[in-house]
């Protein structure tokens, strides 16, 4: 009976998470901290990447720089859009890189990074930010940067999570209301 109850609860939670209905805000900073740690580990792993780590085509990645003087005065919804588009770009880039890399160990790391990005997207959605719709033509209007190696890619990936994404989540209005 306990087992079935446990399974039922898990299913319930999963279905709840999968629904696009308003989710409970995920405000725990440890969630993102874990993703940041894994991104760092992936970046370190990429340093030892030897084959297939040079990209044939440069990939577009978001800008990671944050000027606090400007960021503090910025609009939260704009920042959310910026973050979500950046995440989308990174997801695209990681998918592209996965094809070219041959090492299976790195494959697992890449898959993990991809799923993490997807989870972060869900966290952002849970905070009631307006949803981001990727552009149809594949280009973004925000400034981007182009990387030509996986090491650069994952460095950008780590910096993006540490910087803009973390700032967005830690200063989300939904969380601030909860924490009073």
């Amino acid at each position, binding site marked *: 009976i306990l087992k079935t109850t446990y399974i039922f609860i898990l299913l319930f939670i999963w279905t709840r998470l999968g629904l696009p209905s308003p989710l409970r805000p995920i405000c725990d900073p440890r969630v993102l901290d874990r993703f940041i740690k894994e991104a760092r580990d992936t970046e370190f792993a990429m340093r030892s990447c030897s084959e297939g780590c040079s990209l044939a085509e440069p990939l577009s990645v978001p800008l990671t720089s944050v000027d606090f003087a400007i960021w503090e005065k910025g609009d939260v919804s704009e920042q959310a859009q910026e973050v979500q588009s950046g995440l989308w770009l990174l997801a695209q880039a990681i998918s592209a890189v996965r094809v070219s890399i041959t090492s299976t160990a790195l494959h697992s790391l890449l898959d993990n990074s991809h799923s993490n990005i997807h989870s972060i997207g869900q966290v952002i959605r849970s905070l009631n930010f307006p949803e981001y719709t990727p552009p149809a033509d594949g280009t973004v209007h925000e400034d981007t940067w182009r990387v030509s190696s996986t090491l650069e890619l994952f460095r950008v990936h780590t*910096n993006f999570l540490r910087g803009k994404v973390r*700032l967005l989540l830690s200063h989300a209005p939904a969380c601030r209301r909860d924490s009073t």
Partner: protein
Amino acid sequence: MNPRSPPPTGSVSVECGKLQYSSHNWRGTQQRAVMCVCVCVCERERERETYLPRRRALCGGCGGSRALDSGGRCVCFSGTMSPVRALRRCVFLLLVCVRSVCALDSKASLLVAVEPEDPKCFAEGMRDLTCFWEEEGSRSPDDYAFTYMYQETNEESSKCALTAQSVGGSKTRYICRLPSVQHFVPLDVSVFQDGRLIYNRNLLIDHVFLLDPPANVTVTQTGEQEQLRVCWLPPALMDMENSMMYEVEYAPTGSHMGKRESVRARSEIILHSLQPDTRYNIRVRAKPDGLSYSGYWTAWAPWVSMTTPPAEMDLLILALCVVISLILILLSLTLLLSYRRFLLKKVWPVIPSPENKFDGLFSVYGGNFHEWLGVGNRGFWWSPTFLLVEESPSPLEVLSEAGFTAPVPVHPMPFKALGLSKKEVEEDERTGGQDSVLMGRRKGKAHPHWVLEQLQSLDQPSVPCCELHTLEPSDTYVSLNYRSQQDSGAMSPLADISEESLPLQVLFESPGTPTSFSDLESVTYSSGSGEISSQSSLEYPYGAWPLKGPSYISMTVTDSGISTDYSHMSWGTTGLGDLAMAYTNEYKNKVPAPRLPPHGHTVYSYY
């Protein structure tokens, strides 16, 4: 006279010692300039009167000359400040400069020890970056060029203005402060000396934080033993409050063995396991935790002292010890008491003695089993003998000194006794076990007619008259005793028998009461056995026959003083004489009347 305050134009610079201070354009309504006065223009221009700087001032006299009609005008002109103001301003600026220089000095020295790369850069807040390096000599900062460029951005490289600072005599420190910084992007820094690249470094600004030490460190007692609480303020930087880790060092005053404790994300800690009543010195330092932000350990905050509360546990421990020791003592005493009997049994084992099984064997007869058998245990010991008795009871003949010519009424008892004895014997033969009745009951009834009455009431066939004799008190006679159950009072006379040295006593008591011998305790046993077997008592009527219990024939024998040995009797076993002997004294005590034959004894026989 001077309603208007013409706005002076231009800015003036005032020398204030060696610092340059630029004053802004005085606008009359805004901040005051260094020296703006209203000057009255006098006729003679040389003479001027100065007034305190005000927007408007009245022109007074011109010192002799006449003021012009145009009135005065405000003029700001350069000149030395009033000494007091200048001093105040200089001191203020000096302090500001010194403070920043001092702060930089401490941090720079800290960084020099930790960071190997040049230039050493650190961020004190979220919007600044300070880079420096030290060189021998004292060259001008213009010889150097400091360029930086943010990577992964579309920005160009920029140049930073350098300042020089002399350090430690011969060295010079060149400092660059970036006006604005960007985080989470790599920064590429290059230093050129005379156009030649000397340093190059790539760093992330959010990884080189070197903050101020934690402020407001307070240490308080928690109220518990051996504990102190340390609180401090986290750095007041946005987004940094949750990303800090702290290190607390504490040591007793005077000791050099400090202990360190780490704290993450909390700005207080409780120190445990401290020595009681000791003064502790505590200091704290901070560092970003390394996940999102990273950096160097800050300088230690100044030492803060607090004394731990004195030890109070002694009283409690003492009370506990006392209680526990009391409990232990009680337990040991209990064990000892319960163990003592066991111990006694072990150490002095009780020698099993058969005394309780054999009444009077050791106490009365001194272990003489034969003697004891004759008196004491009548029950089954007597049974084989009484079987013999049953089989062949023989008449009892008593020889006495006195004649037997006494009239019957005078001595009915002996007469009766004799008669009854024979009769009873015969009856016993006939009944085979029926109890005989005591004939010569003398308890409290020394009436000479008593026996006659008893005889008359006795529902027995008459005793052969020929054999009736009257016995003197000194005569020896045998009477048969019978005892019933109802008699309990008759027990007492028997019990009160004192020890007599008379050999023969007449006893009319039932053997239920103890018949004590002088030096033997057979009374108890005889009475006991008599209780078992003798169902008769002195109060029993002659007619009363006990219906149950072992029947017995008791004989009371009176004697003038001669002990009679009845051992030869067929139904008297060896113990019979003893039995007779046993009760010699009894009778005397039991029978209060002096008329009663003083000598006599009851012979009990059981079967």
